[in-house]
């Protein structure tokens, strides 16, 4: 089964800082790399996703960077806000990473 290695497990940043979460995967038949955001007591929600025909995709303060040769993709949150505090999951096909709990301090 597909393995997905996500890091770090937890992350604390100050308001306005940059949050970076990384994900490494094994070989895949499907070229689609999403990140999901989950708030406590809620279901995961698709945040942003990238296809490997591009190396980077930006939506507002959220950016995915993709390195196909290294089999890695990462999520960057610019100007992190307290409202970004949540757990973030990278997903490869049906396999979720273990999640990164992000805390943004005011």
């Amino acid at each position, binding site marked *: *089964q597909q393995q997905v290695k996500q890091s770090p497990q937890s992350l604390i940043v100050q308001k306005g800082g940059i949050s970076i979460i990384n994900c490494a995967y094994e070989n895949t038949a*499907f*070229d*689609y790399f*999403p990140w*999901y955001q*989950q708030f406590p007591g*809620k*279901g*995961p*929600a*698709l945040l942003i*996703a990238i*296809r490997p025909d591009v190396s980077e995709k930006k939506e507002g303060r959220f950016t995915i960077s993709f390195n196909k040769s290294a089999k890695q993709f990462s999520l960057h949150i610019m100007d992190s806000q307290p409202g970004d505090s949540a757990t973030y*999951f990278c*997903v490869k*096909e*049906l*396999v*979720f*990473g*273990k*999640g990164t709990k992000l805390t943004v301090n005011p």
Partner: protein
Amino acid sequence: EPEVTQTPSHQVTQMGQEVILRCVPISNHLYFYWYRQILGQKVEFLVSFYNNEISEKSEIFDDQFSVERPDGSNFTLKIRSTKLEDSAMYFCASMDGTHRDLSYEQYFGPGTRLTVT
């Protein structure tokens, strides 16, 4: 905006009892999924369902579990004889499927918290 709904929001049951968790996927979606999340842990895939049959299932999805789409709108997960370790949050998800070969853009419901005592 269309959304996935799940009922009940919280289910308490005794060990050995059967439970049925219900989901209403987004109406034009073709792929349906169940995941579970034990408190504070990762989201684990259980099963996917397409064209009225299971398309994939994980090792967790053993003979105690079954899924059904009894009508055109509901998608259910049944656990025949619950165990203490089945206590978790269960999420239903659905996907359009039009571009399945290119994406796994899943829409998740709010979850059902199952507590087995």
